[in-house]
């Protein structure tokens, strides 16, 4: 028997703002622009939108956005926690609502002045003694305040265990930067990257160099979820949602799951893989392209293993064989990803997933039946499989 959520809903519209280092407009404006663009893309009036889902980190509340774009009465409004781990989670909440008839047309959005406003790497602070703050306080006094430092701790162990080299990380950065050369929206457009430049770039938190880090971006992205049936009557070819899940494992922390026995795998991503394959009835062999979450290059190599595209420790071999490139086994982040297009917290990777199903990527691989998209790494996360109608 197939899963209740399988094939019930689809991405009918995607909307993006311009990406920049200084938008000059409010985050609410970015969210509104992205939402209106997603509705325009789908050919559906904003007055039909009856649900909004975003990230707890997003400053724009659902009702502010609803009034701004002239949405309908809202039957669903919610925000998902854990930074980039929320990306695919927003889709799950929208899918559950639409599949059960709670809402009809839901916008998932993320809009941020991520460079000119509050930057992600600025560190953590605060005075309220919440359990979350106590969590961060085991790292604050030591000066371990940035996402790069938390990810580096896991990456170093993983690379040491499996013999992953700096060049392997460089290969990921370069593969995605190459894709950006065909994507005028991308930060990396017109800025190709060589291995020499990668290796010469400044060390930030060993083993991670500058080019192992994602962008900081001002911009917004919105994804319109509706029923698969309704999507067929709209403007775009539907990207049908075969499976979508959230996953958080025992011992899970936010960014610093340092206390599990093994540090050289991603248990929450393995769980997401198991659940999303189960829900969709698909496996790694059915996936033709991916948009794996890429705040840091090391995360791509680890996820190849989590999602079963290869065995433990073999992610580097896939990368060396060119698996991530356009003619490789698994073209990945064909828009440039968070590393080379923009950092809209993973929402722009979901948009590219829909484009790959539509056949409209600026780097469209041949014969894409199914695309895998994942949420943040090292945090409670999720996975999404999109497919042809």
């Amino acid at each position, binding site marked *: 028997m197939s899963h209740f959520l399988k094939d019930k809903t689809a991405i009918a519209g995607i909307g993006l703002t311009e990406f920049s280092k200084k938008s000059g407009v409010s985050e609410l404006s970015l969210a509104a622009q992205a939402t209106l663009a997603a509705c325009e893309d789908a050919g559906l009036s904003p007055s039909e939108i009856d649900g909004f889902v975003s990230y707890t980190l997003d400053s724009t509340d659902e009702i502010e956005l609803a009034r701004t774009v002239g949405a309908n009465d809202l039957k669903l409004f919610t925000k998902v926690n854990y930074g980039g781990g929320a990306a695919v989670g927003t889709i799950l909440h929208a899918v559950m609502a639409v599949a059960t008839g709670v809402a009809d047309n839901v916008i998932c959005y993320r809009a941020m002045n991520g460079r000119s406003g509050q930057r992600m790497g600025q*560190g953590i*602070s605060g005075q309220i003694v919440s359990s979350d703050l106590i969590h961060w*306080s085991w790292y604050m*006094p030591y000066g371990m305040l940035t996402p790069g*430092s938390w990810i580096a701790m896991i990456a170093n162990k993983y690379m040491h265990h499996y013999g992953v080299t700096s060049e392997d990380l460089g290969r990921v950065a370069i593969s995605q930067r190459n894709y950006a050369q065909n994507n005028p929206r991308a930060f990396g457009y017109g800025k190709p990257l060589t291995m020499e430049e990668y290796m010469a770039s400044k060390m930030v938190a060993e083993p991670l160099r500058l080019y192992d880090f994602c962008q900081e971006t001002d911009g917004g992205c919105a994804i319109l979820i509706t029923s698969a049936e309704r999507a067929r009557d709209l403007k775009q070819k539907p990207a049908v949602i075969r499976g979508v899940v959230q996953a958080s494992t025992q011992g899970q922390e936010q960014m610093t799951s340092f206390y599990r026995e093994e540090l050289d795998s991603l248990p929450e991503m393995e769980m997401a893989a198991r659940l999303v394959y189960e829900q969709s009835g698909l496996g790694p062999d059915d996936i033709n392209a991916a948009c794996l979450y890429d705040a840091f290059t090391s995360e791509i190599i680890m996820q190849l293993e989590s999602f079963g595209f290869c065995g433990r420790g073999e992610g580097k071999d896939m990368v060396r064989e060119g698996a991530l490139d356009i003619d490789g086994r698994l073209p990945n982040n064909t828009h440039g990803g968070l590393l080379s297009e923009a950092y809209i917290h993973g929402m722009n990777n979901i948009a590219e997933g829909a484009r790959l199903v539509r056949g409209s990527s600026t780097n469209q691989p041949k014969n894409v039946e199914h695309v895998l998209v994942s949420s943040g790494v090292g945090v409670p996360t999720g996975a999404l499989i999109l497919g042809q109608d």
Partner: protein
Amino acid sequence: MAKSFRMKPPMGEDNGWWWQEAAEGRLAIQRCTQCQTLRHPPRPACGKCHSLEWDHLSASGRGTLCSFTIMHHPQFPGFDYPLIIILVDLEEGTRFTSQLINCAPEDVEFGMAVEMVMHEDPDGFRLPMFQPATGAAS
């Protein structure tokens, strides 16, 4: 070194006691009094047996280096860079995040033996750091 540059941990009911132990020179490890499981970071209940009752023991300070990162950027005021942050597998069995001192960045190695040194800031704030083992830790 500038004084009181360090972000002080907020002291809540679930962690304040641990910093009090550090202030008195000890690296504490929380222990479930029902099933004796050790846990770090501290939490109000035991994930194994669900007991709310706990006490703590003082770690020997000996351990091995599980992983590390050497931080170069961004540089926060007051810290010395490159800053070596480590995960230590304590011999009691729990893992602890700390700073490695008295060690050149090129000498850091996975699996190296380390020992705790209780560091004290100019303002009197104390926190456990580690250095390569000398065999002198008790």
